């Protein structure tokens, strides 16, 4: 079907690609520096939980190059801030609650001198007991926010009724965002208390508000700007605040520009990560594998403060069904306080964690029954017309999971490859293969309803060039490219005439974070509204000026068509309009319709629509060492009508590989003192180029968003990430095969080689462990 659009739906390079490849894309640390710029660094706690009994900074103050030192005593306004709850001290307030917590900040004449100076502090602590383990925290009922539970049906009755019942638990590690560009903020003081902040942040408005609170100044004195980030992934949603707020305080104190750019180790030590969690489950199911009742206890490690943990934990609850209908359920979510970095947003935001648990249960059921997990999955899918109410009481109206999974099953040749894998496994002792096909249903919208709003500002200049500004931030996801496509489409001009400018709180105010996969949905719509307002004024003008009907005016092919009265080049047309005193610019505002939800009961319609997707992964494992590798991945993704298939493909592939890192290699490891020991790429291993499978097939599922989203597209950011669960479960499938498909493998995540070897042992799948027993080995080899 030929598209009726000329720009939307077509491939365009990322708007900054030519700058990226030539090194001319400007990131915060690349902005030419003002004269007299100072450089900030933090002094970090070396205890996980302690009272500070002495903080002698005299040597820090007298260190070479040091211009200012601040502690919590120097905070002019609010000493405690936070995204959802003001429980985070700007700098440690007599107490440290994690190893790496900033206790004081320094501004010095060079980056190096600032870093050297902070090492000179003399600190004494009175140690307190640290809670370092999520299970210990849960047992002690140590929470950052109260537990939340949703339940329905006669749980005990159903669990006992059988015919089958199964219980288990597993642990899944967290994940560091590892944006390639670390956290950085550059504060430049202006006249009359004004403060301008250049920051790598997903949430300029929140940075503005926090600085306003901490400096005790009205918001109109604070301006925050972000042209682009070198990656965010959630890590710069709230947690850019440490850098933003302290840079602003140091700038205010010294009257000089101050830049805080975190060294990679400090970035790891200070900021929070994806929530690691433990799940206990209890499930009853029928002879063919249909779930009749399921109970989850979700223990999330939130770290020392609330931050976004409440919303993350809610989203985990909201995704505990994934694509499956649950009739009788009991989901208890514990937001555990631990003495570690405050865990925060990370692509998926609890969704992948929720999905993982139900998929784990499905896999267990299949293993117990000796059925193919795909068959058990299909049996439990939401119905199209019945069995379609989620645990949070939202009706699933746009379900395409049946068709989508059927299609992927065929295109990935799942059944044929299942047989090939079985044959391979029968013929190989050391190496085993595994295969898994995992569906994903992902809810789109911020669960907190008020965040689902956006603003945009579109300027048409008299030469016909167009500048668009909106509240979203560009972190590589191609938001600016897609919004520019929307604007170009609406105005009927070539994309090259539209430019996106830096996100700026003084242009579009009171914005939400760029998060929850909503960037294009919200800001694309807001920009569309702005353009349509401009067009309406122009159409009225054209009717008046050229004598046509306003409804006939069309913006096509870089021209404005006024019925059969005139066809004027766009630039000439807007010049004429301007000469006739018609406004060529407008703001636009958008709020997502239909959504609502009760934060107490966790019921309502938290999501505008769902994204559906599925992935099929094939892996190979080494039963001597547990090493594992993805051999092939096939993905089918419902992007609605994708706005930019190239940019959108990048989101799917990148999200999948990032998810694979979470589930297979990226291990956060704290020592027994609560110190994070994996705090740089030398010790924390994100996927590298050899981890990309040679066979990687991604396709978009033909579908229109049934809701009125921007050009019927669907969100792209987060849903690809949990598709990587297919890799995890393929590994578990290989382990299961190594144990001759007898015992159900016990396997935690990430599935590092060590973790896989342990899982292999749990099913007796290590050939070397059988040594000494009567095993026929070298007989065939002469």
């Amino acid at each position, binding site marked *: 079907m030929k598209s009726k659009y000329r720009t939307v739906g077509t491939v365009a390079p990322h708007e900054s*690609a030519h700058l990226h490849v030539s090194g001319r894309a400007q990131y915060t640390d690349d902005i030419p520096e003002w004269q007299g710029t100072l450089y900030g660094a933090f002094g970090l706690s070396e205890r996980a939980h302690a009272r500070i009994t002495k903080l002698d900074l005299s040597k820090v103050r007298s260190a070479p190059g040091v211009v200012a030192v601040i502690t919590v005593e120097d905070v002019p306004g609010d000493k405690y801030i936070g995204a959802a709850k003001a429980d985070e001290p700007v700098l440690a307030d007599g107490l440290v609650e994690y190893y790496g917590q900033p206790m004081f900040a320094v501004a010095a004449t060079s980056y190096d001198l600032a870093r050297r100076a902070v090492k000179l502090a003399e600190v004494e602590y009175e140690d307190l007991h640290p809670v370092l383990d999520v299970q210990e925290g849960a047992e002690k009922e140590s929470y950052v926010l109260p537990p939340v539970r949703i339940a329905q049906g006669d749980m005990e009755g159903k669990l006992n009724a059988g015919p089958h019942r199964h219980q288990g638990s597993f642990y899944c590690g967290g994940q560091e965002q590892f944006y390639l560009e670390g956290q950085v903020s550059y504060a430049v003081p202006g006249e009359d208390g004004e403060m301008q902040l250049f920051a790598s942040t997903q949430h300029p408005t929140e940075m503005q508000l926090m600085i306003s609170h901490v400096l005790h100044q009205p918001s109109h004195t604070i301006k925050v700007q972000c042209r682009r980030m070198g990656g965010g992934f959630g890590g710069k949603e709230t947690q850019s605040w440490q850098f933003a707020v302290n840079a602003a305080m140091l700038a205010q104190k010294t009257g000089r520009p101050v830049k805080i750019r975190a060294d990679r180790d400090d970035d790891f030590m200070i900021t929070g990560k994806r929530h690691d969690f433990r799940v206990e489950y209890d499930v009853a199911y029928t002879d063919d594998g249909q779930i009749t009742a399921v109970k989850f206890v979700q223990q999330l490690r939130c770290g020392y403060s609330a931050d976004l943990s409440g919303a993350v934990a809610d989203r985990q609850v909201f995704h505990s069904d994934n694509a499956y209908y649950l009739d009788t359920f009991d989901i208890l979510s514990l937001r555990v306080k631990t003495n570690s970095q405050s865990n925060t947003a990370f692509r998926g935001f609890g969704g992948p964690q929720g999905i993982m648990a139900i998929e784990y249960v499905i896999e267990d059921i299949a293993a117990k029954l000796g059925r193919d997990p795909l068959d058990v999955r299909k049996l439990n899918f939401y119905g199209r017309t019945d069995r379609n109410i989620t645990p949070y009481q939202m009706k699933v109206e746009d379900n395409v999971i049946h068709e989508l999974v059927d299609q992927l099953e065929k295109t990935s040749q799942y059944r044929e490859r299942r047989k090939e894998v079985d044959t391979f496994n029968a013929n190989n002792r050391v190496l085993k293969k595994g295969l898994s096909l995992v569906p994903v249903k992902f809810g789109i919208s911020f669960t907190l309803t008020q965040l689902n709003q956006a603003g945009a500002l579109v300027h048409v200049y008299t030469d016909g060039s167009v500048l668009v500004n909106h509240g979203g931030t560009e972190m*590589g996801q191609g938001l600016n490219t897609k919004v520019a496509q929307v604007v170009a489409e609406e105005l009927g001009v070539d994309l090259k005439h539209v430019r996106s400018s830096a996100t700026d709180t003084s242009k579009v105010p009171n914005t939400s974070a760029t998060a929850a996969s909503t960037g294009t949905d919200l800001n694309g719509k807001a920009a569309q509204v702005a353009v349509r307002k401009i067009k309406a004024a122009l159409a009225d003008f054209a009717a008046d000026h050229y004598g046509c009907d306003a409804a006939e005016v069309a913006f096509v092919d870089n021209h404005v068509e006024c019925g059969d009265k005139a066809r004027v080049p766009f630039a000439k047309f807007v010049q004429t309009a301007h000469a006739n005193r018609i406004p060529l610019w407008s703001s636009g505002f958008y709020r997502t319709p239909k959504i609502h939800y009760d934060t107490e009961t966790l019921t309502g319609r938290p999501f505008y629509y769902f994204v559906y997707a599925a992935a099929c992964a094939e892996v190979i494992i080494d039963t001597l060492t547990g090493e594992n590798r993805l051999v092939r991945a096939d993905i089918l993704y419902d992007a609605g009508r994708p706005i930019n298939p190239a940019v959108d493909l990048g989101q799917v592939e990148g999200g999948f590989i990032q998810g694979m890192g979470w589930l297979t290699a990226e291990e956060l490891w704290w020592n027994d003192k609560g110190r994070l020991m994996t705090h740089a790429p030398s010790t924390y291993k994100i996927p*590298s180029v050899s981890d990309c499978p040679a066979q990687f097939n991604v396709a978009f599922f033909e579908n229109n968003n049934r809701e009125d989203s921007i050009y019927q597209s669907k969100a792209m950011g987060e849903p690809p990430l949990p598709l990587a669960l297919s890799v995890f479960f393929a590994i578990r499938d290989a382990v299961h095969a190594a144990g001759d498909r007898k015992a159900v493998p016990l396997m935690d995540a990430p599935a590092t080689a060590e973790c896989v070897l342990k899982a292999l042992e749990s099913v007796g799948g290590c050939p070397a462990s059988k040594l000494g027993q009567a095993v026929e080995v070298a007989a065939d080899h002469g």
Partner: protein
Amino acid sequence: MTQRHTVSFYLNGQLHTVVPESPTQTVLQYLRNQAGLVGTKEGCAEGDCGACTVTEASLEDGQVAFRAINACIRFLPTLDGKAVWTVEGLAAQGEPLHPVQQAMLDYHGSQCGFCTPGFIMSMYTMYRKGQVRPSREEVLDNLSGNLCRCTGYRPIIDATMNMGQYPEAEQALETLKQQLQELHDQTQAPLFIETADQTYWAPTTSSQLAQLFNEHPDATLLAGGTDLGLMVTKQLKHFSKVIYLGNVADAAAIKEEDNHLVIGAAVLLNEGYEALAKQYPEATELWKRFASMPIRNSGTLVGNVANGSPIGDTAPLLIALQTRVVLRKGDSRRELALEDLYLDYRKQDREPGEYLEAIKVPLRNPAIKVATYKLSKRIDQDISAVCSAYAIQFDGETVASARIAHGGMAATSRRAYEAEKALVGQPWNEQTVAAAMAALEQDYQPLTDMRATSDYRLQTARNLLYRFYLESSGETATRISTEVV
């Protein structure tokens, strides 16, 4: 001897002659803070992410050698006599993009773009090396030091494999050769830099080097700097005296001498491993997995041995192969078996002023079966949890001699004497191997850390020996790497 006090190199085609602020100032600091070239990024400041990758060219035996290096941990004075390109040097503003840039753009290889300049420079290096139409395997090897968090790599791999489809870029190799030759002629005299609290020498002959180190035994010897660099950027260490051996021409030689491969102190990891892999193809996988391409282009093989880290990947194999080290102090030399060099954690049988001049690896003895295995969380650029090596000679079906060594199992790379004992004189069968596997427990009490637990290390050390047995008995399909490309 005449000495020079300024560092001279070409940067994007322009000659830079500078007095470094400090001899341990990094190339990246110079680029970003002094030269105003902010296209090159800092992602980690420890040579692990590749955002700082630049291309280095040097004249070697009349040919120009191109290498991708990490600017973040390379000290500025080590560029003396060389040419360097950063991403800004590929196409001036308004000019058409270089083919590698155009390919990256057309294949949608950038998202946030922060890692992109580093990838571009790894690709550009391939282009200049003549790998204009590379295989997938070559691409993976050359991009092994560049992390990208956005794309998942597929479009970057495609861009690199297809960069040869564009009209070829002007290479101007002759001009470059001439520039490097002139620079070479001017930089023959040793470099000497003195600041308020640091001294730096870059001698050009072995005897100068030996004499300097003998006179200043408290100096730090700098080779590739892939470890020292991050001591400066990460631990903020101050080195008051540094002697750089990278300009010592005769230290960069690889020779065959009385049945040994002799590898000099300045031989880079890539060149050293290449020579080693010619004798021992079993070392090829270890070579490709020994850090990343840019690290292997800066670091030296002997430096890795001299560093003596318990998790260094070179030592286990070299110990198994009966490598000897040549120690030099002033004009006197002595030789040691490599395993005798390592006394304890970071403690070596080395006197003040004495340094490793070379290592001597026996040439291939066809009667010996050899293998070396590396275990780490990631394929590329990762530090081993366990690295094992085996060299076993048979007399018929009986084990005549056995040398087994491991990294990651003890405070130094160490031989498994008990396991060796369990094998020697025994028939090469499963029972014997099981006994040797059990004996490994007497050889090692490994530590638990973020890379692996003690139990896992011991268990896999056993299992790797079992793998060696299976492979040596002809079993195939025992390693993922041989099954999957």
